């Protein structure tokens, strides 16, 4: 029988612990087990043989710790070859009968991927690819990726395996007692992503004993359509007479594992602390058990790093705000690379109850593939919500899909041959839920039947490509009712028809219906209600609109999808407060005069909203923006700055004042519109390569902006050449560098030297916990600032402005 068939049939037995046995054979603490394949091949072969003879169908090579980040590639190759040889030798010489397999063991690389860590995703894929290629060339039968405690790294490894061999790939993650990976992944999220990427089996290993892992395995069994595996520890380690022992004996271990076979567990073995004795007992007990047949789960699921969202239950809100069409401010932010604005749009929608975020960055003239990838990476670092990647450009879709940390919604494919040819293979390779638009080369059919015909054509092609029906949802296309009185009716008819005939879910971008009409939300919310009553699975909508959100939550409540009306009540009770804020007249609590004392005090005290109100009042009273800055804001900031220097005011208070001043500046900027503003000196700011501390740098940026410098903040871990490029592009007279570690100061020295050589006009000021005035001089900096206020003073001195 083929290995994949055996895995799907079960019970299939894996091996047990390796490290535990090596320690018993003399492996010293801190010594790397993988080196023993070369130094003690007989011991490794003996352990594999013992597992085969105990009943393992497949043993894993002694390559868990082999990784190009730890060893030169030639050493990796030598260790993998030796390890595979050991496993094959054991297979050839073992006394047990039956089919035996060798699995290439791949463990985590020991680094956290960006943005939480420093390793780039593609770099990680590249390293895993090297391991897979060597292992496959050595003739292993399968690849097993195991003990992964980060979902993103798991994706990198699985992608590398799928791209570099045709072998079955088993994927196993290590969960904490809270049922989550170290980086927050849940069983449902992992199953969605890994199945999408084509894993042949998924499951859990290490960390805990079988009893503690049981609830996690049950969640795997409920979510997975592929076989589920389990390789628990023999409990927790204890020191007994100087020896490490694990606290669950073999019979308890076996009881814990086999109890899951009737629920569907079909691949099993052991991890830390388990020995051939455990596997023998497991096989003895479970060999004749028959797990229930594998069943394809029907849920349509998308996932993020940390959560899965099903599209089969209550209708799902897909936030539409990250789409530049008709949104001037977002367009500007995307053009200027202002990610903070984009990310805040995501947070706002999340706080309003969005469950998926649409991401469209199509701005003419911008590099869409690069931008969509960047925005995707930035978003997935801060939000728990799954993303809907929204582009008509397959060249932009692929890199974003590749780096997406989960199972995305892919928006979109349609019935045109060229589009299907480009998009369907991406959905097959990377997984995802495809949004299929019911249109083709001929346009949008005028009738519901016409749209159904396209839907059926797309479905047939997708299924032929190997994409499951559950992973397709149809968009029957919302058209403006102002242009065609029957538009909405046809869309909803098509929606009902397609759901009924195909059994697939549906999605609509509802806002388009009201285009060209007054009071758009009135008709938009009515259309949403009608679509939901027609069975809509997910609405692409604006969750920040009370009318739209109200319609959605009302429908859920009326359909019995909101237990105790809780969600609706929370929404409704926030309404008056929201209205009070949005309707508050500027004068309600605001000053009636444009007195200096009010604004000055607001800035000094760090009162953001009050500062904005006083500023608006001053401008309304006819004051000139520049004079408000010069006569009120700057003196207030100076007062705070002096207080900080005299240690009567402390850092958080200084920052509150700076934020209040920022709010005041924003009002002035808005009022001045396109008017000429005071000359602003450009400053490039960055935390240097290798360093990820940015708190001090962020404070410097806030203050420098207050004092009128135009700051370009390049972020953290920035290579010298990128900093130079920004200085040259802006012809910046000033550059600020931050480093907090003795190990990253050399990168700072390198950056200073590069700027002085290539951009001699630019003065470089440096700061950070480990620096001193003398050291700053040593590395050639033009100045040293012990704190943010000092940075402002120094910048003014070096540039002669701008305050």
């Amino acid at each position: 029988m083929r290995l994949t068939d055996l895995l799907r049939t079960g019970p299939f037995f894996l091996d047990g612990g390796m490290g535990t046995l090596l320690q018993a054979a003399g492996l010293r603490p801190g010594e790397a087990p993988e080196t023993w394949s070369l130094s003690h091949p007989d011991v490794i072969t003996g352990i594999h043989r013992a597992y085969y003879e105990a009943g393992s169908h497949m043993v894993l090579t002694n390559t868990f710790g082999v990784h190009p980040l730890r060893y030169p590639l030639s050493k990796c190759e030598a260790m993998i070859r030796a390890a595979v040889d050991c496993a094959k030798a054991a297979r050839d010489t073992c006394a047990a009968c039956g089919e035996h397999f060798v699995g290439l063991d791949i463990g985590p690389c020991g680094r956290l991927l960006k943005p939480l860590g420093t390793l780039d995703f593609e770099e990680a894929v590249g390293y895993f690819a090297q391991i897979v290629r060597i292992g496959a060339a050595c003739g292993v039968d399968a690849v097993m990726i195991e003990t992964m405690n980060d979902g993103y790294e798991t994706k990198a490894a699985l992608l590398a395996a799928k791209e570099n061999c045709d072998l079955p790939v088993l994927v196993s993650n290590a969960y904490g007692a809270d049922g989550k990976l170290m980086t927050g992944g849940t069983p449902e999220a992992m199953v969605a992503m890994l199945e999408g990427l084509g894993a042949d089996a998924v499951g859990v290993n290490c960390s805990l004993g079988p009893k503690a892992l049981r609830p996690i395995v049950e969640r795997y069994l409920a979510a997975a359509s592929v076989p589920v595996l389990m390789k628990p520890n023999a409990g927790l380690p204890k020191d007994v007479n100087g020896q490490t022992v694990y606290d669950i004996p073999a019979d308890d271990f076996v009881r814990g594992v086999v109890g899951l076979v009737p629920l569907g567990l079909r691949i099993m073995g052991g991890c830390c602390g388990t020995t051939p004795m455990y596997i023998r007992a497991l096989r003895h007990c479970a060999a004749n058990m028959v797990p229930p047949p594998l069943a394809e789960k029907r849920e349509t699921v998308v996932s993020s790093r940390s959560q899965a969202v099903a599209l089969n239950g209550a209708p799902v809100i897909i936030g539409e705000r990250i789409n530049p069409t008709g949104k001037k401010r977002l367009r500007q932010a995307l053009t200027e690379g202002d990610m903070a604005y984009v990310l805040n749009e995501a947070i706002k929608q999340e706080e309003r109850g969005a469950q998926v975020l649409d991401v469209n960055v199509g701005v003419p003239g911008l590099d869409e593939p690069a931008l969509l990838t960047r925005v995707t990476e930035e978003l997935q670092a801060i939000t728990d919500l799954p993303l809907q990647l929204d582009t008509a450009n397959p060249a932009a879709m692929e890199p974003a899909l590749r780096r997406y940390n989960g199972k995305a919604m892919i928006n979109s494919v349609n019935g045109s041959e060229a589009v299907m040819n480009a998009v369907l293979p991406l959905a097959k390779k990377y997984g995802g839920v495809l949004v299929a638009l019911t249109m083709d080369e001929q346009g949008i059919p005028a009738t519901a039947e016409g749209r159904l015909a396209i839907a059926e054509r797309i479905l047939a092609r997708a299924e032929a490509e190997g994409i499951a029906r559950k992973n397709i949802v149809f968009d029957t296309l919302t058209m403006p009712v102002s242009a065609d009185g029957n538009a909405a009716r046809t869309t909803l008819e098509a929606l009902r028809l397609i759901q009924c005939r195909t059994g697939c879910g549906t999605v609509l971008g509802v806002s388009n219906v009201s285009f060209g009409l007054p009071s758009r939300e009135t008709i938009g919310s009515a259309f949403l209600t009608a679509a939901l009553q027609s069975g809509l699975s997910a609405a692409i909508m604006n969750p920040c609109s009370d009318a739209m959100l109200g319609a959605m939550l009302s429908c859920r409540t009326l359909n019995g999808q909101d237990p105790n009306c809780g969600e609706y009540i929370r929404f409704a009770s926030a309404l008056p407060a929201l209205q009070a804020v949005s309707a508050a007249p500027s004068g309600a609590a605001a000053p009636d005069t444009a007195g200096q004392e009010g604004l000055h005090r607001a800035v000094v005290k760090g009162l953001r909203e009050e500062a904005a109100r006083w500023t608006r009042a001053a401008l309304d009273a006819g004051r000139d923006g520049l004079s408000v800055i010069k006569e009120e804001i700057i003196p207030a900031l100076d007062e705070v700055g002096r207080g900080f220097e005299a240690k009567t005011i402390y850092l958080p208070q200084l920052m509150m004042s700076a934020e209040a001043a920022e709010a005041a500046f924003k009002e002035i900027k808005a009022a001045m519109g396109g008017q000429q503003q005071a000359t602003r000196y450009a400053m490039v700011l960055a935390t240097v390569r290798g360093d990820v501390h940015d708190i001090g740098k962020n404070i410097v940026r806030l203050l420098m902006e207050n004092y009128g410098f135009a700051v370009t903040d390049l972020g953290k871990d920035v290579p010298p050449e990128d900093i130079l490029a920004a200085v040259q592009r802006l012809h910046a007279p000033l550059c600020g560098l931050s480093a907090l570690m003795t190990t990253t100061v050399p990168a700072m020295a390198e950056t200073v030297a590069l700027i002085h050589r290539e951009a001699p006009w630019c003065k470089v000021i440096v700061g950070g916990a480990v620096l001193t005035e003398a050291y700053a001089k040593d590395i050639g900096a033009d100045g040293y600032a012990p704190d943010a206020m000092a940075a402002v003073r120094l910048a003014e001195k070096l540039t002669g402005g701008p305050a």
Partner: protein
Amino acid sequence: MAAALHTAELGEIAPDETEILRYAMLPRSAQDGADLPLDACLAEIRGRIRCRAVWREFPLIRTEEGLDLGFAVTRSKDLGRRLSGCEAVLLFCCTAGTEMDRLITRATLRSPVHGLLMHAIGAQQVEGACDALCAQLAALFPEYTLSPRYSPGYGDLPLALQRDVFAALDCERLIGVTLTDSLLMRPSKSVTAIIGMKKNNAPDTVSKRSILLYRRRSLCV
């Protein structure tokens, strides 16, 4: 003979507002009446943080090459002083986890003050988790007096010792903490430290000042 690697689940540490504001560089004397958005930040973290630790015991041997800590040999005089009279050490790594870093990024997007406060909350979480772990260890080894924790990078104890610490504790696999080429720990709110184990009734040699100095610097961990 290798002692076992132990993990500890320390959960979410109860917030100590005075301590958090001190980490945010607002001394206790200036905390009264300071109007900072700390409550909003604390509401963000509630129920989301799980501090974890891994620890291991090693014998301590004084050799001609210096102090043999069981996982590395060091000539650090500062550590030597702190371990005087000790016969073994406990080595640990403790972390507030990746979610803390994510919350810091989100707070920083909201405003720099929110970012600063979230950093401070993270520092208090991991320091509080270290305190909780140390209390557990003290209860586990009642026959010993445990010295205050001391970390690589302090005094003359080189930061490069981190590589040995990570090899000895299997931090990545057990609690998800990794070390970068520039010896930074990710997640950022993580602490590694050494604790000396001295049989009871031996004289205490560690000054209070060194503990304070250590704590004040921990915002940079």
